[in-house]
Structure formats: structure tokens, C-alpha cells
């Protein structure tokens, strides 16, 4: 009886820890996505940095102009915003399903939204990688916001897969 109670207690605590860990991972992914979308650091060079929304110069007067209106940049903007939105929806769905799901049920909506968010980040990062114009005059390399997008994509996918296998016990 005693061992039964301690086992159940451990299981509960383990479940709680798992849920907490998954929640913290989800919040970290959301923060990564928001920073990647909002920071003007997809391409950096000595003279300045640019994309996704502005291009800012480092020399002379530090000013920022709106970035070019080409169709691929607008597509990347849309995909990044959609990924942030879907990650946020998935967080809301997770919190909702945490309290309202029947026992043994799966976090279906959470997983769907999270996987869709990861697909959107992947598409956005791929489009940016492929369509970025080659600038031979100034040596530009990818900035931290671009790296964050590529980091957020596998994390988001893993998080979505965790939600697929996660089952609400107790």
C-alpha cells in the first residue's frame, strides 16, 4: 500500500515535471520565433543590417528605411507572422486542453498547430535562403535572426511530435 502510494506520487510528480518541461519548451520556442520575426538582423554586413522589415545602416546617420517590397520578402514576412500566431494558438490550445481534456486523450489541436508553425518557419527560412540577392560588393552574411529561425524550426517540430505522443493521464 505504502509503495503503491509513493509510486503514484512519483508518477504524478513525473507527469507534472514533464508537463512543466513541455510548457517551458513551448514558451522558449514562442520567444525565439518572436525575436526572429521582429529583429532586423536576417542579413548583416559591415555597413548595416537588414530584413525582415527594415534595412538599417551603421555608418553616418543611423537611420532605418523600410525594406524592399519584393514579393518574396513579403512572403517570408507573412510566413514568420503565421508561425508566431500558430505557436501562440498552440499554447492557448495546450493550456485549454490541459484542463478540459478527458483522461487518456491526446493533445491533438496543440500538436497540429505546433507542427503547422514549424512548417511555416521552415518555408519562410527556405524562401529567404534561396531568394536572397547575392551582393558581391559588400560581404553580407546571415544574422542572428536568421539563425534563430532555423533553430526554432526543429525545436518546434520536436515539440509538436511530443504533443502527439503525450497523453493526459490522471
Amino acid at each position, binding site marked *: 500500500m505504502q509503495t503503491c502510494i509513493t509510486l503514484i506520487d512519483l508518477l504524478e510528480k513525473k507527469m507534472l515535471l514533464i508537463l512543466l518541461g513541455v510548457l517551458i519548451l513551448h514558451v522558449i520556442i514562442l520567444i525565439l520565433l518572436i525575436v526572429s520575426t521582429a529583429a532586423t538582423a536576417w542579413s548583416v554586413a559591415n555597413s548595416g543590417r537588414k530584413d525582415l522589415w527594415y534595412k538599417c545602416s551603421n555608418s553616418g546617420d543611423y537611420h532605418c528605411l*523600410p525594406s524592399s517590397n519584393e514579393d518574396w520578402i513579403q512572403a517570408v514576412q507573412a510566413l514568420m507572422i*503565421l508561425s508566431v500566431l500558430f505557436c501562440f494558438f498552440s499554447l492557448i490550445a495546450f493550456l485549454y486542453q490541459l484542463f478540459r481534456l478527458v483522461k487518456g486523450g491526446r493533445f491533438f489541436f496543440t500538436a497540429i498547430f505546433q507542427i503547422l508553425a514549424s512548417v511555416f518557419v521552415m518555408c519562410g527560412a527556405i524562401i529567404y535562403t534561396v531568394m536572397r540577392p547575392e551582393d558581391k560588393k559588400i560581404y553580407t552574411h546571415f544574422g542572428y535572426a536568421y539563425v534563430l529561425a532555423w533553430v526554432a524550426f526543429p525545436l518546434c517540430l520536436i515539440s509538436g511530435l511530443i504533443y502527439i505522443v503525450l497523453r493526459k493521464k490522471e
Partner: protein
Amino acid sequence: MLTFLALTSVALLGIVPEQSQAIVIYTGWERHALVGSDIRLSCSFFSWRWTSEDVTFSWTYRPDGSRDAISIFHYTGGAAYVDNKGPFRDRLEFVGNPGRRDGSILLKNLELSDNGTFTCDAKNPPDIVGRPSSVRLLVFEKVPIQAGVITGAIIGVVLGLLVLIVVIYYLMRFLVARRVFSLSVSKHGKKKKEGSQQRQGPVPPADPSKIKV
């Protein structure tokens, strides 16, 4: 009080026409067009006087980057004179109605070199003091995309699809529930599903013999 009002109104009537003897000319601010298309540059004016018979309209053109303007159109004495030597020969047409104070011109078959500023100057004698008004023409190879149009479109479409899918999902669930319910009632069967469905949805007054607990 009344005399004061009368005096001020008379004074205003005296002052206002004095100042607004100036003729006011209206054109657009900026016009965008595609290469090869036609564009109508409108010009009209406001004047306190009646439209006189000696009303004149004249258009001048200053290319981008140049400091000199050339005259391309002039309407006077009831006749319109279009450019027959300059950059707009055979491409300019007068489509205005001077009687209605409209001095618009039509530029046909635009080229990239037509980028520049077009100035319209109208005179309505004796109302001749006024400032000419300019319209800037921008000719594009293809229509430039405005910022945020594609972004907004993609986001709108995806979110719309999401809402649609959720609505359809719940609608299907609702419809399937109703259909199963109506099916078992019409069949008069004593199935388990009938009992469970009767417990779920809104139950119409049913035959007591059918209710199973």
C-alpha cells in the same frame, strides 16, 4: 449690433473678392501609369468670374532631371494647339471642355522617357493672377507591389482557411449527430445507439416504449 454685423459683412464682401481674384488651378498630385498605356492629365480651375471667351489653357513639360520646361499644349481663342514637333507629337490629344473649365489632355502610348512634371496654367481674363499647378507622371515597366499587400493576403488566406476548417469540423460533427439521431428514430429500432443519442441531444417527446435506460 445689427449695424455692426451689416458693416462687417459689407467689408468682407469688399475684401474677399479682392483677395480671391486669384484663379485657382487644380491638377492631380502624382500619376502612375504603365509603359504603353494612355493617361489623361486633368486640369481645371476655380474663378469668381464667369468663364470668358478668351479663356486659355497651356501645358508645359519638364523631364525628370532637366531644368528646362517645354510647352506642349496651348488652347486660346477657341482653338487647341497640340505639340507637333516635340516629344509628344502625334501622341497628344485635347480632351477637355473649356466651356466647363476643363483643360485636360490625353497622352497616348507612354514611354519610359515621359517621366517628368507636367504643369497646367489656365487664365480666365480678367482673372489672370494665379499659380500654375503641376502633376508628376511616373511611368513603370510593371506595376510595383505595395508594401504589405502580399503579406496581408497570405496571412488572411491562411487564417480564413483555419476558421473555415474549424467551422466545417464542428458543423460536420453537429450534422452527423443529428443524422444518426433521426435515422434511428425513423427505423423504429431498439439499438443501443438510439438510447445513447437520446441521452445526448435535445430530445423531442418520444414514445415511452422506446426509451431504454
